[in-house]
């Protein structure tokens, strides 16, 4: 049985058992709906102000003298019976807020990338991001009313994903379905971790 390495960190008693999972995907794909479906609290919203960084990137011409803009993240909390606290974060919908993604991805267990098959390309940046960062992820094909039914296999082929990355159907409005998505992700993380579990490769 592995023990948690804590040599570089604070003593165990100082550590909070908080973990986080990210929910990514294009605008309007159901990220906040998934967060709401599993959260024990009404999903909260937090914002980060962008200042100089965004000047020249944001088109603020329509808003006279607007010098700040905000990037919003929705998140929910699940307190697990054993005292662990799981946070589920919806990533900002706009891809240009990468600095916020880096912050979110730091220390995240893994990510769910939600896909609307009518707008498949919307998920490409998320998939690319998690692949590059080595963050374990799964694909949830969110079924909208009236949306064409594409099989997970078709989606996998379209995204050119390796066989070990789960691609599952879901309806994130449904709590059981949303739970299934998260469980599938954590099971995938377990498999990924046991593959990576090579103490020699672990450096602090």
């Amino acid at each position, binding site marked *: *049985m*592995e*023990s*948690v*390495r*804590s040599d*570089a*960190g*604070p003593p165990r008693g*100082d*550590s*909070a*058992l*908080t*973990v*986080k999972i990210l929910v990514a995907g294009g605008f309007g794909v159901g990220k906040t709906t998934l967060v709401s479906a*599993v959260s*024990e609290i009404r999903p*909260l*919203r*937090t*914002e*980060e*102000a962008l*200042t*100089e960084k965004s000047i020249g990137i944001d088109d603020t011409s329509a808003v006279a003298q607007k*010098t*700040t803009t*905000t990037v919003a*993240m929705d*998140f929910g*909390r*699940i307190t*697990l*019976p*054993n005292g*662990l*606290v*799981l*946070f589920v*974060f919806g990533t900002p919908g706009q891809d240009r807020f990468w600095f916020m993604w880096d*912050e*979110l991805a*730091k*220390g*995240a*267990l893994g990510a769910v990338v939600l896909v609307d098959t009518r707008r498949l390309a919307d998920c490409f940046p998320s998939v690319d991001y998690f692949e590059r960062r080595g963050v374990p992820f799964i694909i949830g094909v969110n079924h909208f009313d009236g949306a064409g039914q594409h099989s997970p296999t078709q989606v996998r082929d379209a995204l050119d994903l390796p066989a070990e990355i789960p691609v599952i159907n879901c309806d994130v409005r449904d*709590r059981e379905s949303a*739970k299934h998505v*998260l*469980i599938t992700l*954590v*099971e995938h*993380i*377990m498999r990924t*971790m*046991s593959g990576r579990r090579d103490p020699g490769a*672990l450096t602090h």
Partner: protein
Amino acid sequence: MTPSPENGSGGTAWYDDAAGPVVRPYALTGGRTHYDGDTFDLVALIVTVDAAEPEDEGRPPGTTAPPWVPEPEHEMILELCRTSLSVVEIASELELPLGVVRVLLGDLLDHSLIQVRRPAPVAQFPSERVLKEVIDGIRAL
């Protein structure tokens, strides 16, 4: 506004040209946008230290801290964190940008008024046991 003579380099000026335009949310923090210590992780838990026995971490006994007058927002954080709360939840509750909350938390930490419980190292290298617990917990929802 109170002059800050302890700010050696800047005198009483709390921003300089390099700070760029002063934006409103950061007026609360005196224009500071960063805390010089560790960054506060989004899901680090903050808990208010019992005022009766403040933690004197790193401060030699006998040294008295310069008098410090907390802003109302500092007080609000201390009130919120009587039971531990994550950094993002504090930002959300106060409806303040994360960056501002981090500066305020830095002030409170500097004055040993809060304790920070960083996310467990499990986040970087989760043990199978923790992951199983997460799965069981989600199932039980």
